[in-house]
């Protein structure tokens, strides 16, 4: 079993300073992520403002059930992630491992549902590009090119989100193994803590994406 001191790098005074630094670093990284997604949200908002009817049309082609299910899956995974961190804090690593496994499975379920949605979009020619075709429009007055713009934002936003999810499940898998090997305890759980922060962030991005893409008509 590792003790706290073995994890303190040479340039830190003590474990607390190192923990504070790591946690602050993660928060600042998340701030950069907010700005990164913020650029895309700005673009989405601008275009939606210009073409509200076309964006409503695009939104009506979303698979609401799949999106709702995914929202539930991600929120649940955030809960299991938070409980996993808590379990290590109270020195119950075995429970934490199981919770991390559940988080991991939920992450993959999310990606699976997302993949299914993408496949459907491909089949329906809703992917922007030369092969794009709106098919049967609910509102015949809209310009299909503007709906294509909606789908461009859909793939852009969910694509970058899915990329973050892929990175997320990889990191969760790593900290799950580390927890299983007994590297974390109430004295030292920094990697788990900052992985949790990242996971919740990716979750929160989805909480904004879901209404913007699926719910606003």
């Amino acid at each position, binding site marked *: 079993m590792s003790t706290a001191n073995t994890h303190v790098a040479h340039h830190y005074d003590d474990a607390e300073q190192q923990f*504070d630094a790591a946690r602050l670093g993660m928060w600042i990284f998340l701030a950069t992520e907010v*700005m990164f997604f913020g650029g895309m949200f700005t673009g989405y908002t601008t*275009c939606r403002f210009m073409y509200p009817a076309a964006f409503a049309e695009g939104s009506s082609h979303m698979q609401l059930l799949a999106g709702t299910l995914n929202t539930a899956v991600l929120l649940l995974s955030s809960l299991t992630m938070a409980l996993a961190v808590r379990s290590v804090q109270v020195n119950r690593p075995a429970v934490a491992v199981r919770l991390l496994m559940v988080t991991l499975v939920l992450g993959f379920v999310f990606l699976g549902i997302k993949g299914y949605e993408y496949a459907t979009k491909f089949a329906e020619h809703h992917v*922007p*590009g030369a092969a794009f075709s709106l098919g049967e429009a609910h509102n015949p007055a809209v*310009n299909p*090119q503007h709906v294509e*713009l909606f789908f461009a*934002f859909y793939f852009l936003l969910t694509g970058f989100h899915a990329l973050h999810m892929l990175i997320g499940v990889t990191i969760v898998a790593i900290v799950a193994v580390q927890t299983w090997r007994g590297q974390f305890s109430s004295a030292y759980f920094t990697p788990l803590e900052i992985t949790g922060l990242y996971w919740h962030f990716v979750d929160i991005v989805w909480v904004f994406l879901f209404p913007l893409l699926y719910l606003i008509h």
Partner: protein
Amino acid sequence: MSTAELPKRHYLNANYNVWSWLLTTDHKRIAILYMISLTFFFFVGGVAAILFRLELMTPQGDLVISETYNRLFTLHGVVMVFFFLIPSIPAVLGNFLLPMMIGARDLAFPKLNLLSWYLFMAGGLLAIAAIIGGGVDTGWTFYTPYSTTYANSQVMAMALGIFVAGFSSILTGLNFIVTTHTMRAPGMTWFRMPLFVWGQYATSIIFVLGTPVLAITLALIALERGLGIGIFDPRLGGDPLLFQHLFWFYSHPAVYIMVLPTMAVISEIVPCFARKRIFGYRFVAFSSVAIAVLSFLVWGHHMFVSGQSLYAGLVFSFFSMLVAVPSAIKVFNWTATLYKGSISLDTPMLYALGFIGLFTIGGLTGVFLATTAIDVHVHDTYFIVAHFHYIMVGGAVMGYLGGIHFWWPKMTGRMYPEMWGRVSAVIIFIGFNLTFFPQFILGYLGMPRRYHVYAEEFQVLNVMSSAGASILGFGYLIPLVYLLWSLKYGRIAGPNPWGAKGLEWMTPSPPPTFNFDETPIVTEEAYAYPPLSDEPLPDDFLSDVPVADEQREPLRS
């Protein structure tokens, strides 16, 4: 001087093999890696400038065709902005000094720091590949839809290069913020920190909040070019102005990324060579933060003639003028610091004084440009070019060189030759003004930027500008030569050749790998220079190592 010696063990001789440099996590070594890389990029960008200044000697296009000219000024802009100016002071001087100034053994995340250099180099290599592959002709601004649809050049590779290098900025900023918050030595309160640290901190805020927006903007350019997703393409209903908004949301604050660290350097040099405590410490510190915050509210002043709404223009005009307030606070405080100071005109001080004058001209012309009516008249003319070069070259490069000279003895343990330093500082100042002052007049007379053929009546001023550029280019070569010379032949500096205050001067030059033998304990304010009457400057305080040792005492507990 014969008795002075370099310390036996220091960060430079701790280990000699190549891997000890390429895999180093020592912030000082990473700073040196950055300095070498940035010097390379500086001269790449400089060569492009010399070539197009040669072309502009005559009104006809006789040296290069317009296609080549476009690629030359784009190369100059992209390389100088993204691969020299933005990283310059933070990545070299900030990396080297920030941990020492707050009494830390290293930055909070040494491995991320190394990663940032590798990302920078990867981005730089992509940029070089794009240049060798034919270059880019869009200007450093990558305006759509030209860059996404029509430009027949290496836009993708260049955008990718800047995208990757952007993450090195983000990591540096993140590291500085966390280090400043968590790694300060006992007694180093926020208001005892040198203003250099405040400046780097404010810059880091912009790095962290601005750069991701540039990253997504460039990613969108690449996606638009590669897949035609249409977000910036008016044919598909996209909005090219959206690109300009996103681009300037980062690229205006980027100007403050260049100038805030410079101001940070000036705030160190001026008190040292005036032998006075800085005037209005808190005002200088908070004006850095104020500039960082305001920098995010002014981007629309690049778009006064783009067709954005009149009201947006007015708001952006107002905020742009507001930036002049904290900037002026700094200039007034430095001037007040000089007042009745015991001023010595060593090379760093020459650069600092040059900076104050040139920055004032650059800043005041910025107020002209923030006035919408004047901006409409001079938009996209050489007036703009002159204005931003007064900030970026007259400001940022002067500050960088001043800082390099000031801390050169700390970085290398040896002095540069003072006479040559002064001569080159004066040559650079003269060359700079001769290059760029005529451009204010050219722009005011209506010569547009980015054309290589111009009306004959502009020739005299253009020849003056090109002559100035050759003087400036020559001026930049002199430090390159004598700084390299000094590595072997320079006089041993001792820990504190300037008799300066600050923790970095309390440790040997060059410093040991972990900066301090024991963590310093700070008991007094920054810039605790003694009152003037008590301590006249030694006649030759450059060589006066014992004085430096004496001054270690008050800071140690």
